[in-house]
């Protein structure tokens, strides 16, 4: 228990009746008034420090984890054509795989800091170039899916909570859980079979019909058509988590006294929900939302593989079958960086939204 110091202006009002000046019971100088403080900069530095530590661990892990994968990348490359041991050794030295692991690690570290992630064994192109090429489609896919899933989940979640145990709640919650439990690839394949195969309404794979300019009106419509099935798959599988978190946190808020205060002030039920209950319930939800955006991007691996979406996920999928070590390392670091940045964003946004964290 601390007794805070006060730098507040002294009140101009009359002194409190019945309390001597030294009692500390003045309205503006209560002894138990919580202390203020906490600079945003300090908070930001702490969180940045945490993010940086995670990033360093990811970089280290990215190198060693993939060297534990089974399969020799050089033998894999050599499999398709006849090669002499001398040629294989030549290949090894070309990729730097003949050097001691610690030297390879050093080269990798230096590469990361200079933006040089090595050259893909399979594509024979610099990894950084590949990642830049494939990042756009992934961002398009996951951002669309994220916006829809978050919007749908939060909206259904707050309605479910407000009408807890109603038919609406039961149908909405159980439907979302069914989709949540379905394997992503299975749902993707079923959708592909029905809408791409049997009905032939939508294209079955890729991002654009070859030959079309993606920036022409026809090209944009074509991309949207390609986008529909993978986005539906991703949204269906993940929106349940937003719904459930929103529902649970709103239900928790619903018994709070300040809602009774709001009702007693004459607010309608809708106003009570929108102005008081939902803003409070959103706070715990925000963190989960941001953390899951990271998860969504990694979830893209499956969807992209099923729909042949030319994104980072598909690139990773192909790199694993190598193993194409530089490419794997590159996508791993990029994926991890996105997740870490999202978590950092969650912390910062939360600080702006919740005054108790902002000024505590």
């Amino acid at each position, binding site marked *: 228990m601390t007794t805070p110091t006060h730098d507040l202006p002294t009140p101009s009002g009359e002194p409190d009746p*019945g309390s001597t000046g030294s009692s500390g*019971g003045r*309205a*503006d100088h209560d002894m138990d008034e919580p202390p203020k403080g906490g600079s945003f900069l300090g908070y930001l530095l702490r969180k940045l420090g945490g993010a940086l530590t995670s990033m360093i661990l990811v970089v280290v892990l990215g190198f060693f984890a993939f060297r534990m994968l089974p399969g020799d990348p050089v033998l894999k490359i050599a499999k398709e054509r006849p090669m002499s041991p001398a040629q294989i050794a030549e290949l090894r030295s070309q990729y730097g795989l003949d050097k001691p692991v610690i030297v390879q690690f050093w080269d990798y570290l230096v590469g990361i800091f200079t933006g040089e992630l090595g050259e893909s064994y399979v594509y024979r192109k610099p990894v950084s170039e590949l990642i830049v090429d494939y990042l756009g489609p992934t961002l398009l896919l996951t951002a669309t899916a994220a916006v829809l899933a978050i919007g749908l989940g939060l909206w259904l979640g707050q309605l479910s909570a407000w009408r807890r145990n109603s038919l609406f709640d039961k149908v909405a919650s159980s439907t979302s859980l069914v989709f949540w439990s379905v394997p992503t690839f299975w749902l993707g394949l079923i959708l592909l079979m029905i809408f791409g195969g049997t009905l032939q309404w939508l294209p079955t794979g890729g991002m654009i019909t070859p030959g079309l300019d993606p920036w022409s009106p026809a090209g944009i419509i074509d991309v949207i058509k390609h986008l529909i099935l993978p986005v539906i798959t991703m949204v269906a599988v993940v929106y349940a988590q937003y719904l459930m978190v929103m529902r649970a946190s709103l239900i928790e808020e619903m018994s709070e006294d*300040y809602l009774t*205060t709001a*009702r007693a002030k*004459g607010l309608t039920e809708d106003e009570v929900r929108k102005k008081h209950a939902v803003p409070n319930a959103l706070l715990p939800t925000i963190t989960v939302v941001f953390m899951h955006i990271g998860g969504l991007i990694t979830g893209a691996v499956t969807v992209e593989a099923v729909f042949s979406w030319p994104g980072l996920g598909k690139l990773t999928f192909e790199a694993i079958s190598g193993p194409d070590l530089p490419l794997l390392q590159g996508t791993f670091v990029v994926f991890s960086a996105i997740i870490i940045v999202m978590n950092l964003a969650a912390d910062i946004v939360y600080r702006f939204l919740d005054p*108790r964290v902002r000024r505590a």
Partner: protein
Amino acid sequence: MTELSFANVSITYRSASTRGDVTAVSDISLDLPTGATLGIAGESGSGKSTLIMSALRLLPKSTTIDGQVRLGGKDIRDLSFGEIRAVRWAQASIVFQGALHSLNPVREVGGQIIEALEHHAKDAWMTPAKRRDRMFELLEEVDLDQSKAVSYPHELSGGQKQRIMIAMALACEPDIIIADEPTTALDVIVQKQILEGMARLVGERGISLLMISHDLAVLSAVCENLAIMRHGKLVEYGPSDQVCLAPEEDYTKQLANAFPQIGDAESRMNPRTLKPAEVRRAQPYEMTDEVVLEAKNLSVSFDTRQGRERAVRGVDLALHKAEILAVVGQSGSGKTTLARSLLGLQEVDAGSQLDFAGTALPRKAKALRAFRRQVQMILQDPSGSLNPKRSVYEAVVEGLRVQKITDDEYARVIGALEAAELTPAADYLESIPQELSGGQRQRVVIAGALALDPQVLIADEPVASLDASVRGEILSLFLALKKNLGMSALIITHDLGLAWNIADTVAVMKKGEIVEYGDVDTVLSDPQHAYTQELLAAVPRLGSQSLVNNG
């Protein structure tokens, strides 16, 4: 002006569970004419909150109201939802327990006052700028600085939050204010300020006041008429004086006696209760000269962002065998920090000395464990200090297992429960906290401490969250533990009545220092220090409108 009347009101909660419907209020008739003040007293479960919530139709849909609740001559059930919303706050507003969660935690308090004005816009506050002015005006009315408008609830003290609640209730110039336990969880001095402020504001404006509380003395300090409720029924109703000083019903007497009048010889060392704990020793222990726990020049400082804060300053204190010592003071006076350092839970400043049975308090974890067996802590809220998923047996046995006392485990648990007067102990072993009443839970917490055969109990507000009738039972238990077992106890409290009821000695703390220290009879009957006098003066006394008249 508007008057509020309840005519033969019964309120039932429909319940699908096996318990069936629950009648919370049965056949209550009460009137609140224009400008009157009415207090309703009752313990938790008496239906008093349900009754007042019905006045603004704020009860959940699963309730049925029989009889008539009339506001300004109209039956509130006949109003449409739009009409009842217009009535809410404009005609009758509610002061909730602001100290708890009645303010939205993520919105500035000024904005929350303005929100009420927006919903009932009148000529005087038609525009946003006028509403802002009105809000500042209201803050001034309740003695808060304008700078507090942009504070969030967590940045305010309990008393300040309560002032915000009152400002909010006054916002739309209502005819009736309903106050729901407006001073619970506040300490006496702040309580007095709030009650005085409320009584003044209500009196000046001719607003009628309907106030509910579990504390008869608080109600009698402000209200002309008092109603006593129990189990949903009206027990007694009449002018404050008569109900408090010459009650007709036994239950009213019990409530009136629950909070002792300091100076009243009958309640000294005698907490009134229908279930007193038994004193089994032929020659009960009395306070001795043998020092058990002693603090010399004890100081505790914290590093805060504003620099180093001294929460406890040079405290000298000695707890003797079979002594009950009450440490009283307002919130923020450092009394909890003092208790924590006596337990070895809080690092103390250099130069402080803590002795237990003549030897210095160990600093090493292992030696401290042996010490903690001798000195046990009891916290305020038994619901919070018991793990809801653990049975009574597990809760009591935990200390024994931590201390690696393995012999006669079962017998020790039974013995502890019986010492805490949970008899027959075997019946309670498998219960989980949820199945017990508040008083029983606190007994389980006490049993958990007693299982280790400690020499000292340190209790932080042990009865503050308990009902009035249970309060007496628990206090009587503390007294019996002292008399039967020769136990010493240090009790942290803001309640001077508690000290009068059971303590041998009292230490008055203010801003980390002990300003007065001595035996209870001397200190409370003839206080020397101004602060002690102020504390004593702030304790509400039974009898008509004492605070209002003095203020």
